């Protein structure tokens, strides 16, 4: 069970015009702007639900994921995930969640993938039988068998991403946060990742929150969609709610963004 209530997060951003003279001016007087990344965001997600979290660039999707995964502390509001506040007692909290940041890497660059996995086994104190079981399962579903012995630097993006997802799931988390997990993947890898997420949700009842710009991800995976723009939730429903009257979801979404000036 995930509940977020009235969560606000503001970033202080220094800004100046381009060019030498404004750079010089900024030496003496810095101007800051406060950006409301999240402005009174509330939602509830029940166990085993799969939710697509969408919105234009800079809407606050990643900020939400970061708050939910305990990395960011909001200024206001409460957030409870399985009864715990993510940013309090981080180490105890993160044991039960799995996070994939599509734009970052968690695998050790210069060593085989397997070494990173073994490290995670120790970090999460996974006992050997269940580690083996999960690993076999993941290897099969994500097609990793030929990749595990390769150094991470020699993997392609899609191959690496499948390994990243496996790495985030080795400890069998109850909740999975996926921040753009299909970014830059080819069709085959994309389908593999989607199938995998779906199976995981059906078989283990894992709660999944997924951010993406790929509407096909959303259509293939989630029933419920939360749409965020400029830090506020604009819609909490199904993709059909937006889609009515449009041929493609992409167009529908673009029209929706335009009509809300986001």
């Amino acid at each position: 069970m995930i509940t977020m209530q009235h969560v606000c997060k503001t970033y202080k951003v220094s800004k100046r015009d381009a060019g030498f003279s404004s750079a010089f001016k900024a030496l003496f007087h810095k101007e800051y702007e406060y950006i409301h990344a999240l402005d009174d965001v509330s939602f509830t997600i029940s166990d085993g639900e799969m939710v697509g979290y969408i919105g234009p660039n800079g809407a606050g999707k990643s900020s939400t994921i970061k708050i939910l995964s305990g990395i960011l502390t909001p200024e206001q509001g409460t957030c409870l995930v399985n009864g715990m506040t993510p940013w309090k007692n981080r180490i105890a909290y993160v044991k039960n969640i799995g996070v994939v940041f599509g734009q970052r890497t968690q695998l050790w660059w210069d060593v085989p993938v397997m070494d990173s996995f073994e490290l995670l086994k120790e970090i999460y104190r996974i006992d050997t039988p269940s580690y083996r079981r999960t690993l076999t399962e993941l290897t099969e579903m994500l097609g990793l068998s030929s990749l595990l012995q390769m150094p991470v630097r020699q993997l392609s993006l899609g191959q690496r991403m499948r390994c990243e997802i496996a790495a985030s799931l080795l400890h069998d988390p109850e909740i999975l946060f996926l921040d753009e997990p299909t970014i830059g993947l080819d069709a085959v890898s994309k389908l593999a990742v989607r199938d995998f997420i779906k199976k995981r949700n059906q078989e283990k009842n894992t709660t999944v929150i997924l951010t993406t710009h790929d509407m096909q991800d959303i259509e293939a995976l989630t029933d419920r969609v939360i749409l965020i723009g400029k830090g506020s939730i604009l819609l909490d429903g199904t993709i059909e709610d937006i889609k009515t009257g449009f041929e493609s979801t992409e167009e529908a979404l673009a029209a929706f963004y335009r009509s809300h000036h986001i």
Partner: protein
Amino acid sequence: MRKYLAFFRLRFSMGLQYRAAALSGVITQFAWGVMEILMFRAFYRADAEAFPMTFQATASYVWMQQAFLALFMVWMMENEIFNSITDGNIAYELCRPVDIYNMWFARSLANRLSRAVLRCMPILVVTIFLPAPYGLMRPVSFSAFLLFLLTLFLGLWVTAAFCMLIYMTCFFTISPMGVRMVATSVVEFFSGAVIPLPFFPDGFRQVAALLPFASMQNVPLRIYSGDLAGKEMWQAVSLQIFWLFALTFIGKLLNTLAMKKVTVQGG
């Protein structure tokens, strides 16, 4: 504890795979050692009496320093740690049930040890056979050798704890370059990496001996060559232990502060 050991193991085995780097390191360190010893030879020829250490002891100091360079050089920090802070990959590390300080500390120790293990052997073996007074002398006594090993380890620990402070300040500035550069040159100078501390003038020397930098390579290298012994040696060892705790404490404090204010940008 086991998880940090796992970090140690992985970083250590990773360090062992860079063979070409180790080979070029060994060559560089030989060349550097020869140069330094020749320079000191010129000084000693002018007036050997003017120096607080014998030429033999100085040569041993230099060779031991070159052999264990990787344990003590502050500039050998882990770029991956700096990068993870500046590019935000730290996000992943924060999603793990690990303490950032302990994890990085284990990594730093492993990194330094793996480098030193690869590099020290050829240097020690060759220099011990160099003719006196240019080579590495045998340890003055067995107990001095044991103390050398102990203080070598303490010195490594102090160095790693100091580097942790630099990693931690990186959370508070956008670019680590400035802090890193200043810290590196200060440490080089005050730790006896450029010139052994006994060579410095009175007054300055006594103050420098109290600083944390003197608790790094200065103590083990001088114990080995027999320059540091008796009461003065025990003082130095106690100072090492003191700084070890003090630096670790400050580092952990900074860690706690950093965790409170960290913002992962972008993405």
